């Protein structure tokens, strides 16, 4: 019974372990080590975890008696999390918060990453909950890590309060699920549900509703999105990027895992709920973003809308939908990181770098970053042939395929509305006037962020041209969800 098979859990273990190591590295007396050690260690750990994820690629392996899985699905998502985390580490080079809290910063990032990986690789409800909590708790701290900034504190506290409520809902949902099936293991829950036609069972219904609410909160889907803009705005920009990519991916992974992995038999019970939050997210996110002048808030609303698109894929309940969702996660990762990289750099260059106006005429001073931002925005808006387009195309296609054509139409209308605010950014960059009086300062080199930005922008393009192989991978991952 006690099948430990620790190898299958190595990626998580590496990351979690290094989290502790970096924390201690920040305490060692040698200044040089204090300065660079934690970041280097974190980077190394992340790369090592990626390598391990690659090595483990293949059919499902179970660790710790099936509480942690390593299959195509979890490993693929590991890449999303690890890339996001790596980006944050690179962002944090010379980041004020990171300089101040040398050990804690990478340690918390790694802890949060480990939480995400646990979510994707969980094999039972406890691991899942642990993962969710681990990533959230670390993020609460990260949001507020710039304790000298009132906004950062406010952001952390808001996130904590609403997040705790969300977690409570989620946990209660898990309890209900346990109550309905009498098991905590995914495989057994799935078997239980398929065997004893539990559809419309009150406990199951309650579980579904509560889980949708809890995960919807994590994915910042409307109407559980209210915290998103405030927290995104207040948190350090690197963390915001991490939240909007990693957390969202983790939440979406949990959605996929629960609804497509273990509850496919009762699709009728949960589909409507997911459609509801998907539509609400698309509508709210896109409309609210129309009037935003703060780039981070704008990206926050945009991420709400993007969550809506991602949920479309889940709502279909088909392999094609899951596949599209996974592809779009990668595309979304690339374009969001690119966008945040530019915001981050601009923040360090000018005092109010997160204002939309600060980008006015930016292409004159920094054409490369202007192109990066343009690609990111166009891709987010779904302009072909960028990866954002391909992803949306797949998502809407899967919706049409699942007889949810109207959902695709809603999504498409939403993306038209979104064009307005995305292109406003592009317009400001290219067509705006430069303000000669603006104080330009440079807070040290921003190479790390630049590298991330350029790489992400290139990835946003490359994903299009490599659609075929990547989709194959995604399909494998999606199929492994349903494998017994």
């Amino acid at each position, binding site marked *: 019974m006690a099948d430990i098979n620790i190898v299958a859990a190595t990626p998580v273990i590496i990351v979690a372990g290094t989290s502790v190591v970096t924390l201690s590295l920040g305490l060692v007396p040698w200044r040089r080590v204090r300065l660079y050690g934690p970041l280097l260690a974190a980077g190394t750990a992340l790369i090592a975890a990626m390598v391990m994820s690659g090595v483990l690629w293949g059919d499902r392996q179970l660790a710790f008696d099936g509480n942690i899985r390593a299959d195509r699905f979890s490993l693929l998502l590991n890449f999303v999390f690890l890339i996001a985390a790596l980006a944050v580490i690179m962002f944090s080079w010379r980041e004020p918060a990171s300089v101040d809290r040398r050990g804690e910063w990478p340690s918390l990032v790694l802890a949060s990453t480990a939480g995400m990986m646990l979510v994707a690789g969980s094999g039972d409800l406890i691991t899942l909950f642990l993962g969710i909590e681990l990533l959230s708790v670390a993020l609460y701290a990260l949001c507020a890590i710039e304790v000298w900034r009132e906004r950062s504190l406010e952001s952390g506290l808001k996130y904590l309060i609403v997040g705790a409520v969300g977690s409570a809902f989620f946990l209660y949902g898990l309890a209900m699920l346990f109550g309905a099936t009498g098991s905590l293991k995914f495989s057994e829950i799935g078997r239980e549900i398929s065997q004893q036609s539990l559809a419309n069972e009150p406990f199951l219904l309650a579980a579904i509703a509560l889980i949708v609410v809890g995960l919807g909160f994590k994915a910042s889907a409307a109407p559980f999105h209210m915290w998103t803009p405030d927290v995104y705005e207040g948190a350090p920009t690197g963390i915001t990027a991490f939240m909007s990519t990693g957390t969202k991916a983790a939440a979406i992974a949990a959605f996929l895992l629960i609804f497509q992995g273990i509850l496919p038999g009762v699709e009728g019970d949960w589909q409507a709920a997911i459609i509801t939050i998907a539509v609400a997210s698309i509508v709210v996110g896109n409309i609210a973003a129309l009037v935003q002048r703060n780039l981070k808030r704008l990206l926050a609303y945009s991420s709400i809308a993007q969550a809506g698109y991602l949920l479309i894929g889940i709502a279909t309940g088909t392999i094609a939908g899951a596949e599209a969702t996974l592809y779009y996660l990668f595309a979304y990762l690339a374009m969001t990181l690119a966008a945040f990289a530019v915001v981050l750099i601009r923040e360090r260059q000018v005092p109010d770098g997160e204002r939309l106006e600060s980008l006015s005429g930016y292409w004159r001073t920094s054409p490369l970053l202007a192109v990066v931002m343009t690609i990111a925005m166009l891709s987010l808006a779904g302009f072909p042939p960028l990866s954002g387009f*391909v992803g949306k195309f797949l998502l809407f296609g899967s919706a049409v395929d699942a007889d949810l054509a109207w959902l695709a139409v809603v999504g*498409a209308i939403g993306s038209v509305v979104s064009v307005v605010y995305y292109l406003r950014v592009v317009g400001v960059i290219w067509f705006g006037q430069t303000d000669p009086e603006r104080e330009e300062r440079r807070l040290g080199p921003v190479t790390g962020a630049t590298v991330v930005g350029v790489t992400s922008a290139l990835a946003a393009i490359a994903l299009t041209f490599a659609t075929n192989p990547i989709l194959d991978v995604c399909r494998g991952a999606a199929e492994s969800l349903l494998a017994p």
Partner: protein
Amino acid sequence: MILAPFVAALFVIALPPQIGVLPVRAMAMVGALVALAANCYILAGFDRDGAELQFVDTQEWATQVGLEWNVGVDGIAIWLVLLTTVLFTLAIIATILRPPSREPQFLMLLLMGETALLGLFTANNLVLFYVFWEAMLIPFAFMIGIWGNEDRREALMRFVVYTMVGSLVMLVAVVGTAFVARDVTGQFTYEIQALRAVDFTETQSTLLFAGFALAFAIKLPLWPFHGWLPRAYGAAPLLVTALLAAVMSKAAVYGLLRVGVPVFPEGADNFTIPLLTLAVIGIVYGSVVAWRQDSMRMLIGYSSLAHLGFIVLGIMAFDVIGGQGAVLQMVNHGIVVAASFAIVAVISRAANREMIDSVSGLSAVAPRMAYVFLLVAMAALAIPGSNAFVGEFFILTGTFRWHVWAASLATIGIVYAAIYMLRLYQDSFMGPLRATGRATDAELTVKDAIYMAPLVLAMLFIAFYPAALVGATEASIKRAVAPAQIAADRPPEDIAEPVVPNPPPAVQPLPGDEPDLTAEDAGAPR
């Protein structure tokens, strides 16, 4: 061929600014000329009687999405491709001769626009078509946004939003088409040629056609979807306005002819009357409004609204004559409008903000320009004997065979064309000499002649030997309109017999997915 300008664009952007503008110019010219040369090569090897796509090139791209690189030209596409390469080459020459600020970027965007349009005209895959359709928007939006006048923000916003609404509808239609087609035949494909064979039910066909038609109508623009036109045409740099009117509008009519009518004959048939009505309204409305414009540029812009109405008539008549005339007129209109805008550019050197009443009597100081303008004006108002007359004549001939009312009402546009073009010509070149700027600036210089001469020569060539173009379109047009003719219940002797019949509906179901075809066919749309 399509990629040549794109590669050149990459080079242009990659060249460091220090080395000066010459290599950039050279690179841009090379890109445009390579495309032109490739085009000539294709033209030389083109089988004029074939209805099939020729020079097909296929590459896997994203099979699961149905996206693949699948391009080729037929008798319709080749002329639009030619028009694109020629006009963009001229545009690049014109840019080099009278460079705007930040010339390299402008050239780069021009080349990217050319790429998108070439891709659009050759795409044989609905998704690819859509990709290029959208890609076309970006360079034009940038050119308006960076080099436009002070009104550009509003204009750009409107332009982008309108077109995005259109593309969105089209996107839904594109996806819908493939899925509905799969339900009907069991084959999942976005290939346009294969989709032609699909036997959609009338409802499916109507709905999908409506989606495409709306997108095309906005891009055209067809009345009343032209809300973006005045601002965009007004705010863009003149060269860009010219390209918008000359080439980009063709994308929409081309789509109608390539996708709309052949793939959804029943739907097209159901929309005949509404589209014809809108086209006719557009012709009259555009003409009347053009007449009352104060600015030369807007006059031409609105006239373009009217002329595109004619092309729509020709396509929606489902008539071989009308269709061939429409293709010819696409080329004609592209040339004539480009030449018209070029003339406006020359005149405006002596005028105040392109206002018509700011100059008059320029014939006295600019006799050569007067001749050229006269020639172009006559072509624009389609005087018998001009190239545009050939197109309009046969468009209306075709339309008249089936929809007497539409053709008859459209002739109002011919009369108004005379009125507004003469207004433009006479007010600026006749009467007592008066100019805001230096009147002699309006004379044709050698620089202007370099890019205007090819346009004028092309106009004359088509006027004297239209068969060179029209001859190659017949087979393709027959193939395109035959299904729609059948759908319109035309008498059998009037239905064109395509040289290459459309392939029979593919009935090879995918492995493991063998739908009950009879049930599917009989069933209502899902």
